């Protein structure tokens, strides 16, 4: 009887002990696996921000935009505040509009300034579809490097700032287009490419 009781008491303790060890290992793996950026993004996406002014809800979201610099052909980060909510798609539209408007630090915009974002739609499978006005095609005479810069500035901006976005499809005036200027294939969805970003 006494033995039985002891065993019953011991079991939950063992299970608890084992669980906490597993949890500890998982936490270590999570942090050691170079996931610091992931963790930061996770926290930013899920933990409510403290209001800027006491008593008022935060009305802005910090987004990272990708511009070009005069001295190399890499993408350079610049952060910006855009109005928050109500949906990620609307925040994404504002972020890309800021990208088109241009840098506040003298960097170059990879997109024609006349371009308008017609709509952003974020699907369940993580595919964001962004529809641009025809200016994105007509106002630039793209070389390969320009075209890669334009496409990946958009794709990286969407994927980097919105955790729901895994892949990006680019449309022009609501329709699929082969390329912007004869180079980069727009008929397939893009994954972000951070190898084009300056460290």
């Amino acid at each position, binding site marked *: 009887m006494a033995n039985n009781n002891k065993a019953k008491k011991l079991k939950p303790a063992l299970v608890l002990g084992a669980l906490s060890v597993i949890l500890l290992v998982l936490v270590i793996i999570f942090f050691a696996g170079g996931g610091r950026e992931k963790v930061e993004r996770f926290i930013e996406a899920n933990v409510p921000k403290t209001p800027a002014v006491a008593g008022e809800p935060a009305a802005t979201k910090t987004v990272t935009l990708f511009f*070009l*610099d*005069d*001295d*190399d*052909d890499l993408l350079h980060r610049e952060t910006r505040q855009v109005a928050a909510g109500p949906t990620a798609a609307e925040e994404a539209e504002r972020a890309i509009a800021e990208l088109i408007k241009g840098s506040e630090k003298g960097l*170059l*915009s*990879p997109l024609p300034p006349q371009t308008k974002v017609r709509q952003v739609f974020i699907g369940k499978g993580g595919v964001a579809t962004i529809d641009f006005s025809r200016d994105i095609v007509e106002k630039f*005479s*793209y*070389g*390969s*490097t*320009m075209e*890669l*810069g334009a496409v990946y500035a958009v794709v990286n901006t969407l994927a980097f700032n919105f955790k729901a976005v895994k*892949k990006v499809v680019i449309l022009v005036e609501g329709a699929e287009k*082969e*390329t912007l*200027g*004869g*180079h*980069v*294939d*727009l*008929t*397939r969805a*893009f*994954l972000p*490419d951070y190898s084009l970003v300056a460290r």
Partner: protein
Amino acid sequence: MRDPIDRTARGAVIAVALLAALAVCSVSGQAPAEQGQRIQTMVIDPGHGGMETGAKGKFGNLEKDITLAISLKLKAIVERNVGFEVVLTRDKDVDVSVENRSAIANNRKAGLFISIHANGAVQKKVAGSETFFLSLNATDEETRRLAYLENNSSALQSRIDPSSDDDLMMILWDMAQTAYIKQSSQLAELVQEELDALLGTKNRGIKQAPFKILAGVACPAILVEAAFISNPEEEQKLASEDFQMKVAEAIYRGLARYLRMPF
């Protein structure tokens, strides 16, 4: 009782035979020298054309004109030195869709595809020469599927019938280049080395990009960016006969080395 065992045994024999066949295919598909002996047609693609001008230079030069000039020179050099037929996707200033360009290569059963371009950047300072091959930009699941194709490259061309308009065939064509990525990267490396040796421009190296023109081509395929038309100094070079001839000569030397031929 004996039937299922028999079936298993037969299955195992078939599996081993298939694996052996695949191994043979992938070995023959990776040897450039052997590839070279079989090549009868090469396609040169002068980028852009017609209404689609490509990049523009400060002095008014257009990418489409420079790509055509270099392509015509390259065609002449190859025809003078090598026995195979050279087909241009355009030989004058006309619009040709990207899809039709790769269709020309596939319908003519091309063994090599070289697309000629002049680069353009937003920044005037950016300069140099680079050679691209296709990047797959694929998810994990697609990568697994593509790895299979890559290991069975020589079998792919015979499996795809260019005259078919079936949807599945279209999808296969869309991924045609994935079977030739390794050969394309070798070709890109050799051409880029020669560009670096002959042009005196900054060497921007070999790169991968999801270029539409390369995706649908069922043979080793590269895209050469000779220099930057958006850089005023390089625009002047690109417009000169002498520089165009050097670009053509460098590309020819690179492909001759790829084919293991003397030049």
